[in-house]
Structures are given as structure tokens and as C-alpha cells.
């Protein structure tokens, strides 16, 4: 019965599964809620189908869309026209096509009349309505009157204010996953990159082994084992200065999250592109830099490499020797990046610029190509995908 709604949700790429749909059906079957009440159905389906507050907003939108025009059978007396109406009016102007549609519904004059009538009724019942009933005949209202959708919304709203409002309010919009980024969320995303192993000092009691060994020998023989640790090792490269200044905050967050999440982590700074040296302290970058060659030799190839940068520069800075804006580089940035990628199999690039702009920045496209498409946006989603890629 609600199969279309389910597919709408799927289409909006909400992670819903058949099991959850069946659960909802079971709940409807057992009459958890009165099945004629839309509000209750909305609450129930939300609780059964959405499992993460990030998706609540999307769910509200799909619900609003799937059950558009749905009216409730109760609350007829509740009449109040909210201020949103006024705003809507200003926004909606109709095309000729739509006007024709109104005509087919009985002509817009008639519709306008009913609307006016309704507004009159409202006035008697509600003080709030009086403010703008007077403006009913003026142009913004006329524009609204044209709108078949507008009138329909009107019916819904006036019959039962609550019915549409609950999901139309979109209270959860700021919980949407693509927007919010805090260190905690980054940590959760970084946790994808884990590989546990017991290595090092034997500091924990190995109970099973102790029992076995004790039974075997006839006296208590304590066995120890090393603690379980995440043995992922990471090299982080941060682009600093220039166009990256706009992204300082998110880089800070990523850095602090990565520092707590990875025990074995080394970080380095570079500017725009990787050349023959990187540095660890921005104040002393000219005195205390580290040769890239040394770096490639020092850290074994099981390190995972994460580059953070907007990859926004002149293409020459990547492809030509001497292209760097800061000094004369003997070899091109591309050479250095390829060298690094030859050593470290698992490497990705995180870009704070939204993905849709990458194609328009030629330097970003070049780097993406060098990284064989392993460039991800610096959002929770992006980090998540990037970590999966690194885990491969």
C-alpha cells in the first residue's frame, strides 16, 4: 500500500531496507497507531525507516512529496492561516500553462472567490487573520490566487494546521550529513581506518592460554600477551598558505581528529604541490625542511598517505620544472607526486573545495588524474569514502 513511498525513499538515496519496510507494515498491522491519522503514521514511519538524524530532513522532504495533497479527516475546526502563506505569495508567479490548469479547475475567478470566502471565515474566528485579510484583493494575493498549488496548500493548512506542518517545518535540516562537520564526526569517519593487531610489550593476561598451560603443567603458569592496538600508520600532508587560508578551520579539525585517532601518524606541510622538500614547522620552513627523498626512504610502504589541499594553482606548478611560485624546482611536481605514489600504494587526496568545481579547475583535474581518481571532498561523506579506499 505504501510501496511507492518506499521507492520514493530509495530513490532519494535514503538507506532503507526491506526489513524496515516490513517492520513498518507489521506495526501498522498491529495497530500501533490509529491508521487514519497522518501525523501518527508520519511519526511511526519515521521511527521505523530512519535510523540516523542526518537523514531526518531528507525523509521529511520525501514524505511531504509522496503524500502531497493528503488531507486528514480530523481537526476541521482548527483554522489559522500562518504567515508562510504571505511569503509563498510573493514567491509564486505562474506560467501561462499553469494558468490554463487553473482555468480547467473552474476558472480562477471562482477559485479566488472561494479563497476570499475562506479568508472571511477566518477573520471571524481568528484575530491573527485580520492583519492581512485586507490585502486579500491586492496584487500579491492575486498572484497567489493564480497558483493551483497555492490554493491546495491553503486547504490543507486551514483544515488542519498540524497535518502538513510537522514535516514541512523541516526541523532537522541542520542535521543533514553533507553540511555539518565537527571533530567528533571526523573521528567517527576516520575510525573506518582500523587494523587491530597484538604487537609489542606483553602487558595483558592471556586467560585462555594461562588456563591451558596450567592444566597442562599442574601448577599456575601465567601467560601474558600484548595489548590490542590499531596498527594503522599514516602520513598526512597539509597544503598551507595562499588559497588554503580559507580552509584553515576544517584542516585544524581534521588534524586534531587524526591526531587522537591514529597512534602512528606523521604530518608534513607543503605549499600547493609536493616538491623536493616538506617541513614540519611553518615558522622555520626554510631552515628546517625535510628532503622528500629522505621521507620516502624513512617511512616504509605500509604507511597510508593522505594529502590535504585544494589543488588550486597554475597547471605549470605541477607539470613543469621551475613551475613553482616560490623557488626554482629542478623537477616538476608531477614527478615528485608520482615518485611518492610509487612507494605508497595506499594514498588519497582530500580536497576542501566542493566536488562539483573540480572539473573547472584544471590543476585539480591533473592531480586527480595523477592520483588515479582517488580524490575525495573534505566532508564527512568524503572522508568516509576515502578511508574505505585506504583500507583496500
Amino acid at each position, binding site marked *: 500500500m505504501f510501496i511507492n513511498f518506499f521507492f520514493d525513499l530509495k530513490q532519494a538515496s535514503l*538507506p532503507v*531496507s526491506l*526489513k*524496515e519496510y516490513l*517492520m513498518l507494515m*507489521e*506495526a501498522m498491522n*498491529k495497530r*500501533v*497507531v490509529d491508521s487514519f491519522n497522518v*501525523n*501518527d503514521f508520519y*511519526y*511511526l514511519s*519515521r*521511527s*521505523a525507516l*530512519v*535510523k*540516523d*538524524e542526518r537523514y*531526518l530532513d531528507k525523509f521529511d522532504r520525501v514524505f511531504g512529496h509522496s503524500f502531497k495533497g493528503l488531507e486528514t479527516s480530523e481537526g476541521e475546526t482548527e483554522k489559522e492561516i500562518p504567515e508562510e502563506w504571505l511569503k509563498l505569495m510573493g514567491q509564486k508567479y505562474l506560467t501561462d500553462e499553469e494558468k490554463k490548469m487553473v482555468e480547467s479547475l473552474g476558472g480562477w475567478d471562482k477559485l479566488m472567490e472561494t479563497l476570499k470566502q475562506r479568508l472571511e471565515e477566518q477573520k471571524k474566528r481568528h484575530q491573527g487573520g485580520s492583519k492581512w485579510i485586507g490585502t486579500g484583493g491586492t496584487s500579491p494575493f492575486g498572484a497567489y490566487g493564480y497558483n493551483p498549488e497555492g490554493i491546495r496548500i491553503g486547504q490543507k493548512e486551514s483544515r488542519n494546521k498540524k497535518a502538513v506542518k510537522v514535516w514541512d517545518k523541516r*526541523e*532537522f535540516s541542520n*542535521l543533514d550529513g553533507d553540511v555539518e562537520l565537527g571533530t*567528533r564526526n571526523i573521528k*567517527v569517519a576516520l*575510525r573506518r581506518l*582500523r587494523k587491530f593487531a597484538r604487537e609489542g610489550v606483553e602487558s595483558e593476561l592471556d*586467560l585462555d592460554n594461562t*588456563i591451558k598451560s*596450567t592444566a597442562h603443567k599442574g601448577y*599456575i603458569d601465567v601467560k601474558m600477551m600484548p595489548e590490542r592496538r590499531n596498527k594503522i600508520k599514516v602520513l598526512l600532508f597539509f597544503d598551507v598558505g595562499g588559497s588554503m587560508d580559507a580552509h584553515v578551520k576544517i584542516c585544524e579539525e581534521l588534524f586534531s581528529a587524526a591526531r587522537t585517532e591514529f597512534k602512528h601518524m606523521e604530518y608534513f606541510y607543503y605549499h600547493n604541490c609536493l616538491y623536493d622538500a616538506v617541513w614540519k614547522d611553518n615558522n622555520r620552513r626554510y631552515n628546517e625542511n625535510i628532503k622528500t627523498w629522505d621521507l620516502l626512504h624513512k617511512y616504509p610502504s605500509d604507511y597510508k598517505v593522505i594529502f590535504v589541499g585544494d589543488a588550486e594553482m597554475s597547471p605549470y606548478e605541477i607539470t613543469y620544472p621551475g613551475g613553482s611560485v616560490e623557488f626554482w624546482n629542478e623537477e616538476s611536481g608531477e614527478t615528485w607526486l608520482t615518485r611518492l605514489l610509487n612507494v605508497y600504494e595506499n594514498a588519497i587526496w582530500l580536497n576542501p573545495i566542493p566536488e562539483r568545481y573540480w572539473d573547472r579547475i584544471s590543476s585539480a583535474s591533473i592531480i586527480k588524474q595523477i592520483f588515479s581518481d582517488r580524490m575525495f571532498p573534505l566532508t564527512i561523506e568524503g572522508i568516509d569514502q576515502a578511508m574505505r579506499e585506504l583500507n583496500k
Partner: protein
Amino acid sequence: MKFEGTSSYIATEDLKVAVNAAITLERPIIVKGEPGTGKTMLAHEVAQSLGAEIITWHIKSTTKAQQGLYEYDAVTRLRDSQLGDEKVKDIKNYISKGKLWNAFESNKRPVLLIDEIDKADIEFPNDLLLELDKMEFFVYETGETIKAENRPIVIITSNNEKELPDAFLRRCFFHYIKFPDPDTMEEIVNVHYPEIKKDLIQEAFKIFYDIREVPGIKKKPSTSELIDWLKLLMTDDVDAKILREKDPKKLIPPLHGALLKNEQDVHLFERLAFISRRENENLE
């Protein structure tokens, strides 16, 4: 069995629907939300309103799923065996029951609260998947199967420190407690302090919601902090007039320690007060 909220707990309509769905379908419900929105309270209130026993299992970073089922105390048995204790012959003496076992054994349908499940290791929820789904588990040491006589009402809270696995989520109902709007908040406050003055509430709410709106604030004050603050205001008998004070010199609300829990936030607030004071002086 239907949960309708209690005299000491204001449950919104959507929360009631979610809880009742979980009760009827005998499935766990996961409750998330900002700290201080009453996630843990919910389980206690559900138990109280249904007249059921509550069993709480607080999760720590070191908690293992097995501990919820049972623990086998091998070390004590080992020691007893060395001393030739009679007890050693029966393995049952060394098995201590976990919270889940207790809940399954209960002869009246209990409420089982698994508090802050996200504190545990990332694999923890997966380890409980079957146990919570089938409501039974197997004790290897004695070879018996423990099956729930009455499927407990399982309420799980999470603070979102870790993502929960999909397979686990699919078996549960979910509810996100959003921060209460002023109307609901007033109901909540009335439940806690029925004798509070109306005008004090109004002014206090204004300040409270204003603070929550301050951009860049690190820790937004929550419901429980508002309740504490109101209590302080009442015991100190602060007049509503003082809260209404528009004098920017007194922009920082009285007894702000209850609302701002972080020195950076206090600094931020002081700085804002300073800026607005300077602007006012310039105007003059």
C-alpha cells in the same frame, strides 16, 4: 501496554508513537539526541508508567558484549582448585549472570536500558545482534540455552560518538529527541517546579534561548542545565526584573555558571558584552 508519558516527564507525540511501536513489536528502540534532553530518563519513566522493573546496563569503553550475558570466573575457579574447595566441581558456581540474563529471567516484562551504547568498541552492537533479535543465548560452559520468558522492552541510548552498524540499526526503532521548543520547555519546567513565577520563566527562557543562539558557542546549555539554573534563580530569589535588565554592563546573566560550562564560552560572552557596551557608548 501503552506508554503515555508520566506526571514527571513530558513526552512529545512522536516519542510516544516510537516507544509504543517498540513495545508492541517487541523490538529495541534507539534514542539519540543532544546531551541533557532526557534520553536516560525516558527508560526510567517508561518503566514507571508501565509498572515494570528496570534493569540498567551502563556501557563503558571497556565493556564487552559477553559481560551482558554472563561471565565465567576462571581465575577464582583456578584458585579454588588449588585449595581443593568443594565448590570447584560445579561450574555453575563460577558463572555470574549479566544484565541481559537478568532481564531474560524476569517473570514480568522488564525494561532493559542499555545506556550510552556508543561508548563501547565499534563492534559491540554487532556482538549483541542475535541476542537482542532472538532474545536468547547459549551458555557454552553449562550447555544450556537462556531464552527470554517475557521479551524485555529494550531502550538503547546513544550520544553519537560512534556510528552504529547498519545491521543493528535495521532491527531497531529509532527516535531523535530534538531540543524542546519553548512551549514544551515550559511544560517540562512546570513539571519540575510547579510553584515557579510566570514572569521569571518568561525572562529566563528568553536569556536561555538567546544563549543557545550565540554564534560560536562551544557547548550549548541543555534542558537539564536550564532546570538547574532556574532552581538557583529560585533559591536566590532573583527577581524577574533583574533578568529583564537591558543595561549592557549586566549583560552576563546572573548565576551564569549553571548555563555556561566552559571557560571559552564565558570569555566569548564577556567579549560580546564588552563589544555591545562599547557600541552603546559610541552611540551616546
